[in-house]
């Protein structure tokens, strides 16, 4: 496997390391980190920045009794058992996503959008953002759509191309608001992506009226 060529925006890595990024977007960033040594290094640096900022905060005195209370609580707490080992066998999902979904793609329900393009019934949302999975058969074409907010795709299997580039496993494609794009899955196999979007999208193609009724995409 090669190193990813398309990364989340640097601000997203900062928001992730700072803890201000919301859960849905954090899921995509954490999943990308599983593939990307560069972004892992950047997040580690930004966490070091958090460490410096923490160390430099003007201290606020704590109650005199706090340490005693803490030691009493610790006396009553057993040492944590070592973390449960990851299930054996390779998953198509990177760890953070595997833990969020709890099933492999074959075990999920899928909703057909157009021939060859499916969305998972599994979805998470928080605030205005939501995430689900997108599956494209080899050579399948996702209908043109424009965005009322941002959209990101993380490739986990196969690959796809659009007018902005070609995306392989581990890559993140980011689309700003109001960017129409036409994704086509690579011809040599199925493409599986994590799709994160921040608002319902509006389809522009001939099928748009139908898709806008039935599907948030």
């Amino acid at each position, binding site marked *: 496997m090669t190193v990813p060529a398309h990364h989340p925006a640097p601000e997203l890595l900062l928001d992730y390391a700072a803890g201000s990024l919301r859960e849905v977007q954090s899921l995509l960033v954490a999943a990308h980190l599983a593939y990307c040594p560069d972004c892992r290094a950047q997040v580690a640096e930004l966490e070091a920045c*958090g460490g410096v900022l*923490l160390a430099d905060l003007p201290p606020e005195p704590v109650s005199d009794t*706090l340490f005693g209370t803490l030691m009493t609580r*610790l006396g009553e707490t057993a040492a944590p058992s070592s973390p449960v080992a990851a299930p054996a066998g390779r998953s198509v999902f*990177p*760890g953070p996503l595997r833990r969020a979904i709890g099933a492999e793609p074959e075990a999920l329900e899928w909703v057909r959008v157009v021939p060859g393009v499916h969305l998972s019934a599994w979805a998470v949302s928080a605030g205005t953002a939501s995430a689900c999975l997108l599956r494209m058969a080899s050579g399948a074409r996702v209908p043109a759509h424009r965005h009322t907010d941002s959209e990101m795709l993380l490739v986990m299997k196969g690959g796809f191309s659009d007018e902005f580039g070609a995306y392989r*496993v581990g890559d993140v494609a980011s689309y700003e608001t109001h960017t129409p794009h036409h994704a086509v899955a690579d011809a040599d196999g199925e493409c599986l992506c994590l799709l994160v979007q921040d608002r319902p999208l509006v389809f522009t193609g001939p099928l748009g009226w139908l898709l806008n009724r039935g599907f948030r995409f």
Partner: protein
Amino acid sequence: MLPKADSNDPTMPDHEQLLLAVARNRDSTAFRALFDHFAPRIKAYMRRLGADSSAAEELVQDVMMAVWLRADRFDPALASASTWIYTIARNRRIDRVRQERRPELQPDDLMSEGGEEPTPDHQFEAAETAFRLRAVIGNLPPEQADVLRLAYYEDKVHAEISAERGIPLGTVKTRLRLALVRLRRAFGEGA
């Protein structure tokens, strides 16, 4: 009380040494010293992020409990003591205050073959990098330092910083990216 094996290493900074003493010997004197240093800073961090005084002290207890219980997972080659404690504090706040789960990468999650993770030159490199980083942060132009601190201390993603300060999103991104370039230099120098 402090581990003898490392006391001849002049580059080994205090807090890292204290954490190792907690991990190896369950050293409660070392733990008390860590508490005295970090508890008031963790409290300040939680207060900045909107916790009231008693909620902040609850969170201080949570974080320091985790420090005691998980000290054996601290690796001074990978993170300084304050970085390691910062990540625990950040995650506790997300759990408890925002009531969201924090999607985290775990060590065996890596999808690429082989451990291509760069290995630090020596055990306490992370703490030395933190010294350089502190200088870089201190010398950031005020508008860059401002957007950086908002991200860490006010639970604001860059789009919210833009809205709240009435600064165009593009400007916020530019300031953040300039700040990030400068921060990266602090790490580059160590390589």
